[in-house]
């Protein structure tokens, strides 16, 4: 019991003015008061009221939010700015608050105080937010929306299909739901917005040696810097990453070409008019771009085909690790768009080389942008009777 007595003595022993106990107690109380104040102050910056006290925030993003289901809905539950834009856990919240110095700078120097200025920075700001959402698989969304609690039966069949697939991989919500609370930025060159909303803008951090698939028809370049185009990579084409430098990647495209003209067009496989890439004349003739292998005559046309590999540069965006989302999008677009006038033939009704003629012969009636057209045609070709022998 002696040690207990010693402690008591130490604590009760008068210091110069106060006992250590008194000091500790006061410190403890002070701590509570200080923490309370800090917390109150912090929480004050964590209210919507605070967020929209800046003109820039009130006049643009807040007004946009007000038009969405996250602001007004039948259940009366709503999301405020910090619910989505500030992490709920302490550590990340602190980190986010430190980052917010950015916002203060913006406020001080009026960088987004007019709609024009706001729109000019919209893509930059949105991209930062999307990246943040991606880093924790859209945790901010999942604080309210959980895959486990979703009632599949009350969803439409289409939503079910998409959501179940997303749930399997615990997919980040923002992958598909960009623009759910604020106006989508003008993506500039981003084409086929519905398609991209579905399949995303590609993976970040391409792995050398891995294969990827193009989510759009993409420009090709001679090297990692130049803007001089060397051709185009068709949508849904498999490429291998050979090298990554900054925002460019050197890719290898395997395929076959017809030995006519300059041999600028690379197709998916021997004798199949499934487009992989088209090169400019200069690129096709440039040393080191095209490696050539064996040659064969196509019995259906009498043309000579040659196996090739093109090694060439492209921007590192819009490259997907998985082809299936592209096919899913193509299939649903085909089924919907091509059944307005007639029953759409099954993809395996024609062979790969007949589809371009059939598809191009009907396309005037159909409502698809260029990328989607190219994708649907490729989907039909790669699911044609050439590959799927189940028809008839």
């Amino acid at each position, binding site marked *: 019991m002696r040690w207990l007595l010693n402690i008591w003595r130490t604590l009760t022993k008068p210091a110069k003015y106060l006992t250590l106990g008194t000091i500790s107690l006061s410190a403890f109380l002070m701590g509570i008061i200080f923490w309370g104040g800090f917390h109150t102050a912090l929480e004050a910056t964590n209210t919507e009221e605070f967020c929209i006290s800046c003109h820039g925030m009130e006049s643009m993003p807040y007004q946009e939010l007000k038009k969405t289901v996250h602001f007004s809905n039948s259940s009366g539950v709503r999301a405020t700015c910090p619910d989505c834009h500030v992490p709920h856990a302490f550590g990340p919240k602190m980190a986010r608050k430190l980052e917010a110095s950015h916002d203060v700078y913006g406020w001080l120097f009026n960088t987004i105080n007019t709609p024009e200025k706001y729109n000019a920075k919209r893509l930059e700001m949105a991209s930062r937010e999307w990246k943040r959402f991606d880093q924790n698989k859209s945790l901010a969304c999942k604080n309210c929306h959980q895959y486990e609690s979703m009632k599949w039966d009350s969803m439409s069949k289409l939503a079910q299909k998409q959501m179940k697939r997303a749930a399997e991989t615990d997919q980040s919500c923002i992958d598909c739901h960009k623009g759910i609370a604020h106006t989508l930025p003008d993506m500039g060159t981003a084409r086929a917005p519905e398609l991209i909303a579905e399949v995303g803008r590609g993976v970040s951090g391409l792995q050398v040696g891995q294969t990827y698939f193009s989510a759009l028809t993409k420009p090709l370049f001679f090297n990692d810097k130049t803007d001089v185009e060397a051709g185009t990579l068709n949508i849904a084409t498999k490429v291998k990453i050979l090298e990554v430098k900054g925002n460019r990647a050197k890719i290898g495209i395997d395929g076959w070409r017809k030995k006519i003209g300059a041999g600028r067009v690379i197709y998916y496989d021997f004798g199949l008019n499934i487009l992989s890439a088209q090169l400019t004349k200069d690129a096709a003739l440039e040393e080191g771009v095209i490696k050539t292998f064996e040659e064969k005559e196509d019995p259906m046309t009498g043309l000579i085909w040659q196996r090739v590999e093109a090694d060439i540069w492209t921007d590192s965006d819009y490259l997907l690790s998985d082809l299936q989302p592209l096919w899913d999008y193509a299939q649903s677009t085909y089924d919907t768009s091509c059944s*307005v006038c007639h029953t759409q033939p099954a993809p395996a009704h024609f062979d790969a080389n007949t589809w371009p003629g059939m598809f191009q012969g009907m396309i005037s009636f159909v409502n698809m942008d260029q990328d989607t057209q190219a994708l649907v045609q490729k989907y039909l070709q790669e699911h044609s009777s050439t590959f799927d022998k189940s028809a008839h």
Partner: protein
Amino acid sequence: MNRRDFLKGLVGTSYVVLSGSSVLAPLNALAASGADASDGWLTTGSHMGAFKMKRKNGVISEVIPFDTDMYPTDMINGIKGLVYNESRIRYPMVRLDFLLKGHQSDTKQRGDFRFVRVTWDKALGLFKDSLDLIQTKYGPSGLHAGQTGWRATGQLHSCTSHMQRAVAMHGNFVKKVGDYSTGAGQTILPYVLGSTEVYAQGTSWSLILEHSKTIILWSNDPYKNLQVGWNAETHESYAYLAQLKEKVAKGEIRVISIDPVVSKTQQYLGCEHLYINPQTDVPFMLAIAHEMVEKNLLDNEFIEGYSLGFDKFLPYLQGQTDGVEKTPEWASKICGVSPEVIRDFAKVLTKDRTQILMGWCVQRQQHGEQPYWMSAVLATMIGQIGLPGGGISYGHHYSGIGVPSSGAAAPGAFPRNLDDGQKQLFDSTDFNGASSVIPVARWIDSILEPGKTIDANGSKITYPDIKMMVFSGNNPWNHHQDRNRMKEAFFKLECIVSIDMNWTAACRFSDIVLPACTTFERNDIDIYGSYANRGLLAMQKMVEPLFESLSDFEIFTRFAALLGEGKAQEYTRGMNEHQWLEMLYNDCKASNEGKFEMPSFEEFWKAGYVYFGEGKPWVRHQAFRDDPEINPLGTPSGLIEIFSRKIAHYEYDDCPGHPTWMEKVERSHGGPGSKKHPIWLQSCHPDKRLHSQMCESTEFRETYTVKGREPVYLNPEDAKKRGIKSGDIVRVFNDRGQLLAGAVVSDKFPQGIIRIQEGAWYGPVGKDGSKEGGAEIGALDSYGDPNTLTLDIGTSKLAQACSAYTCLVDYEKYQGKVPAVSSFSGPIEIAL
């Protein structure tokens, strides 16, 4: 007692025949009683164009063309008569014997037109029970619900989409591929020019007018056929035809119509005529090609750079492969064009910029692939494909092709397909080893010879054993060939369901008939101008559905409800007519965001239309011409295929590897069969109808009929030989059938040729003209449907398409008992 007397007895004793209720006045009155009383002008449209309709006292009182329609068709005068019509299906009805005996009914009675009125619940219940029975007993190969055709316009209420979605919720079924209009063309041209061409946008008229020096109308009558379109037609093509007429008058453009008859377009333009014997375009074309080679009039550079296989075709042309050199002298004996004219024509084609405009008729005959293929070869030899005002088109007579597209996004439509993951009541996909998709015109063959395997487009097709058909807004008893053969096939069917607004012949030969309302009894939206895509049109409901008719949307929502709990909701995706329209509009608006200004749905509906503006002129195949490597055609080689190795490797005797002249099973002017039946029957697209749509519109029909019958156009000398003058009733016949029609004697029709336009409603009566016996094989058609006489064979093993133009007949002045026309009066209503 013979069967007919027995039937008469049945009707007389066991059942009461309800006397046919009188027509227009009561219809109007009935309409008025149930209608919205608000009057005024509303906007709507149809295949015939956009128009304004006036509603007065709850009935449609006036129809006038839309303000933007500078060249309206006079068919709009027939619109009102479609709504208030003695042929209207007033309530659900079931064929008498089917109601009594179901799938064990006497199918030979089908077509006797005795029907019993039932409730909607009863009719839809019978429909569903029949589907259950078929799926259980035979599986999906027993059901064909894929025989679809032209419908009424409207993106939401498109009747074929509704029927196919609902029936697919029940189970799977046999479907078709191709269509009757362009079956051979849309199959051969992808091999040759890399696209269907028939449905592809063509070089803009403005560029043709600017650059062409010569325009060839090849069996092509755009002035007649551009009156209608797949969507609400804008009729803008007519402005260009008017300019062309001026240029022809001034001698700036030479237009030559190659045709057995003087077409409506030729008469309008005042252009030249080059007569050719029917079905002999290929020998004529071969001889032109021969002459081009002889006189070196061909563009060798173009042939070399843009096509494949000319070297394999040349030996045939020069007679090295078959011992027959395709000289103008050789061709002249077949096609009836003198060697001098052929030689001169080769010069005409190659002298200056020449635009060839092909019609669709020449491919609707046996070996119909060949004239299309050979015309592409001619155009390649001329070498102007891809130049403004040069080359070849297969569509300038259709739906405004040649009017530049606005480029706006068009609205979507109510889905034809099941939604992802939707469960079917019967989900079997086992077609018993038969094909699930058959060429469109081969379904009667399939019913008659189930299990038979045929060649089609490089594949083998095995005919399914079809036991039940469902038709919606579709009248195969117009567009299919050979009525008596159809009857034989229909004897074998257990159940036929038709959903339509008026009593078409297809309804007459059905077991369950469901009344759909007309376009003007529901709200919808349509694309204004199929290829022009000039804007969106509001189709505003004029009156409530007449009698017990319902919209297709409502019919199949009720049907879906029979499939189980929540199925109606699944069918409609939980949205009503208004919500669907608003969604289709807003989706379209979103797609056009930033490109084409579209007001809110409410504002659009109030205005009645949105205008997207005009498109930019465009040249077909220009990109290919500019760079054939980067912009290859959709052919196997990417080039024009004069010789197709792919087709050659199918080894079809009736479609070899290059264009070939093959004799027809029937051909006039000295060809096979012409001794027995010397007259060629031309059954072209009608001038006053869209196929069979509008034939029932009484007052409008009476503007062109002869003694109440469809006109048959006769050559004066042929008619005189037979003692026939205009206004006489003529019996047209061959070994396949017989019909009555009203004579119009006209020098526009050369000897050995008659014209009866397709789309005339089949109205069978007894063989000898008596009222009874219309259901029997050999019946006399009282109105004049040319497909009573046409030949039901495939064009070839390639396309297996319809060959209606290979048809010989003879005719005489009708001396027998003149029957009343039986096509339009609706059924004999029996009360049980």
